[in-house]
C-alpha cells in the first residue's frame, strides 16, 4: 500500500508538452501512474503518450476526473500554475521546480492551507510509491533504491535520499511511499503534516526521515510523536553533525529558534520523543532491524 498516490490516483500533468514534462510523463506512466491528461496553454488538441492536452486546467477538468496535478513548470511560473490547480479544486499538487522565489513559496503554502490542499515541493524529485505510481522525476529504474515495501520515507535531500534508501533496501526492506518535501527554505508541505497519513496507512510499518541542518521540520516531527499523532517506529538520519557552522541568517535565524536548530538539538528532540537517530546512512537499515520492523 501507499499514501498520497497509488495506481488509482488520476493525475493531470501541467506543462506536459515541454521536454521535461514529456520525458517524465512517459516514466510516470511506465511505472503505472494513471496520467489522465495534460495542460499546456496553446497546445490543446495535441497528445502526449496518447493523453489529451488542454489549454487550461479548467478546461481539462471538464473532461476528466482529476485527483492530483504534477507540475513540470519553470520556477518563475510555478506560483501561477499551483494557483491554477488549486482554483480548479485539485487537492494534491507536486512541483519539482528548483528555484521558486521565496516569497512565491510563502504564498503557495499559504494558499495550500486556505484550500486545504497539499502542495509537495519545490526543489524535489516528488513523490513515489514504488510499483504503484509516481509524481515527479524519480529514476525508478534504480532497483537498489526504488523497491516496493513497507517503510515510509520523507526527505529534504536529493542524492542523500538515494544513499540512505539504498541502505534500507540493502537490509531487505522496501519503500511504501517516498515523499521528497524538497530542499527549499519554505517547502509546500512539511514532514509533520504527512505523518498522519503514514500513521493511517496499514502497510507502512515504520517511517524514515532524512533531515538537514536548519529549520524546525525535525523538531515538529518529534512534537508529533510526543502528541501521539504518530505512533509507529521512526528512524531519522541527519547530515551535518560535524559541519562548520555558518551564520547565514544573521541573528534572526538564531532568535527564531531561541538559539536552537542545530543538528544536536534536532537529535535531542527526536531522541526524547522516542525516535532513533542514525549516525551513518548504513545505520538506518540496521536500526530498522533492531526495532524489529517486519520486512
Amino acid at each position, binding site marked *: 500500500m501507499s499514501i498520497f498516490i497509488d495506481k488509482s490516483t488520476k493525475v493531470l500533468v501541467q506543462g506536459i508538452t515541454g521536454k521535461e514534462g514529456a520525458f517524465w510523463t512517459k516514466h510516470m506512466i511506465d511505472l503505472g501512474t494513471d496520467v489522465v491528461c495534460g495542460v499546456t496553454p496553446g497546445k490543446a488538441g495535441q497528445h502526449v503518450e496518447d493523453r489529451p492536452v488542454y489549454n487550461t486546467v479548467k478546461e481539462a477538468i471538464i473532461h476528466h476526473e482529476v485527483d492530483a496535478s504534477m507540475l513540470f513548470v519553470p*520556477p*518563475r511560473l510555478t506560483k501561477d500554475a499551483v494557483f491554477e490547480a488549486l482554483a480548479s479544486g485539485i487537492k494534491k499538487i507536486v512541483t519539482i521546480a*528548483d*528555484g521558486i*522565489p*521565496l*516569497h512565491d513559496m*510563502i*504564498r503557495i*503554502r*499559504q494558499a495550500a*492551507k486556505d484550500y486545504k490542499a497539499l502542495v509537495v515541493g519545490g526543489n524535489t*524529485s516528488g513523490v513515489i510509491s514504488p510499483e504503484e505510481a509516481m509524481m515527479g*522525476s*524519480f*529514476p525508478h*529504474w*534504480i532497483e537498489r533504491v526504488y523497491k516496493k515495501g513497507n517503510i515510509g520515507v520523507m*526527505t*529534504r*535531500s*536529493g*542524492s*542523500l*535520499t*538515494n*544513499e540512505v534508501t*539504498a541502505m534500507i533496501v540493502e537490509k531487505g526492506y522496501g519503500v511504501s511511499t517516498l515523499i521528497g518535501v524538497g*530542499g527549499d*527554505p*519554505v*517547502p509546500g508541505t*512539511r514532514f509533520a503534516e504527512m505523518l498522519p497519513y503514514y500513521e493511517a496507512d496499514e502497510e507502512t510499518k515504520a517511517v524514515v526521515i*532524512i533531515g*538537514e*541542518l536548519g529549520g*524546525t521540520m525535525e523538531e*515538529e516531527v518529534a512534537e508529533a510523536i510526543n502528541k501521539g499523532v504518530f505512533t509507529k517506529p521512526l528512524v531519522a538520519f541527519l*547530515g*551535518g*553533525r*560535524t*559541519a*562548520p557552522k555558518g*551564520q*547565514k*541568517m*544573521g*541573528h*534572526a*535565524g*538564531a*532568535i*527564531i529558534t*531561541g*538559539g536552537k536548530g542545530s543538528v544536536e538539538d534536532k537529535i535531542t528532540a527526536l531522541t526524547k520523543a522516542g525516535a532513533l537517530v542514525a*549516525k*551513518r*546512512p*548504513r545505520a538506518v537499515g540496521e536500526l530498522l532491524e533492531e526495532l524489529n520492523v517486519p520486512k
Partner: protein
Amino acid sequence: MKLYEFQAKEVFNEAGIPIPKSRLIQSIDELSIALETVGLPCVLKSQVLSGGRGKRGLIQVVKTKEEAHQEAKKLFTHEANIKSLLVEEAIDIDQEVYISITVEPEAAKALLIASSEGGIDIETLAVEQPEKIVKYPIDIRDGLQNFQATEVAYGFNFKPDITKQMIKILLKLYTVFKQYDAELVEINPLFITKQGLVVAGDGKIMIDDNSAFRQTRYAQDLSDYRTEAEYEANRAGIPFIQFDGDIGLMCAGAGLTTTVYDLINYEGGTVANYLEFGGPNYKKALEAMEICLKVPSKVILIVTFGTIARADVMAEGIVDAIKRLKPDRPIVTCIRGTNEARAVEILKSAGLEPLFDTEEAVRKAVALSKEAK
C-alpha cells in the same frame, strides 16, 4: 545574496529609514574628504560580508584625524581583505533596539522580530529572556499594516515621539523586505539617540537567490571571495567552499555532501574543500576538477548518487578531465545512480577502481590522505 552594510543603508535611505551621515571610501586617499563630510569623532566600519566585525576589530571609533588615518591604514592592510570602509558619524546612543523581518516557513508568513534590547547580545537574550523579544507574524498578502506596526511600537513603551518614528521605520522596513524579495532585513542595532532620533546603526539585507532574475540591482559581489578557487567556482556557477584539510570533495547534493563531510570526520580525515558536482553542474566535470586541483589537497573524493545527473555522463566527464588535467593526486570515485553499470565500464577502462559504497570510499580516501603526509 547578502548585501554589504553600505548597500543595505543605501536601500534604507531610499526607503526613508534614517541612517547616520556617512561616506564610503575605497582607499586611504579618500579619508580626508570623508572626515570633512562626516565630522569627528567618527566610526570606521570595514565593509565585509562576514559577521562579528566588532569582535574581530574591524570597526574602530576614532576621535582625531591622526587616529583616523592610523586606523584606516591598519584596516586597509588587514588580512580580512577589506576593500572599502564606511566612515560614519559617531552617534550619541541612548538605547539600542533590534528589529528584523524574515520568513516563518511553517505558518507561511513574514515574521517581524523586535526587541527594545538590541545590540550584540541579542542572541543571548533570545535564549535567556525570550519573552523580551516580540515575534509578530505578517500575512504577506496585506503586508505589515499600520495598526500592526503600531501594536509592536507601542509595546516598547518608548516616548510617543520615538514610538511614531519607530512605526514609520517598521513599515518602511517591510517595504524593503517585500521590494527586494528578502530572506532577511535586519537593523541591529537600531539607535535611539540622545537627541531623540531613531537611526539605523547597522543594516543587513539578504536577497533570495531564487529571485535574482527580478532582483538585478545588486549583482553578486565577487570581491569578498577569499581564494582564487572560490572566485573561479563562483564564475562557473559551482557552489564551492574551501577549508584547510586534506581531502578535496566533489559531491552531488548538499545533503550527501554534508553526510560525506561527517563520515570523513568520523574516520579521522579532514576536508580540503566542498564542491557541488551535481544537479545542473553534473556535466561540468572539467571545470570542477580544475577548481579542485587549485586547492592544496592530498586526494580527491568523488561521491554521487545521481538521478537526472546521470552516472555515465559524470563518469565520462571525470575520465575526460583526468586525461586533460593529469591530476597530481589520487582520485577515489563512488559514482552511483542512473546508468551506473555503464559508468563502471567507463571508469575501469580509464584505469580507475570505481567503488559503490560511500563508507568504503571515504575510508579509502582518508587512508590515502594519511599516506600522503
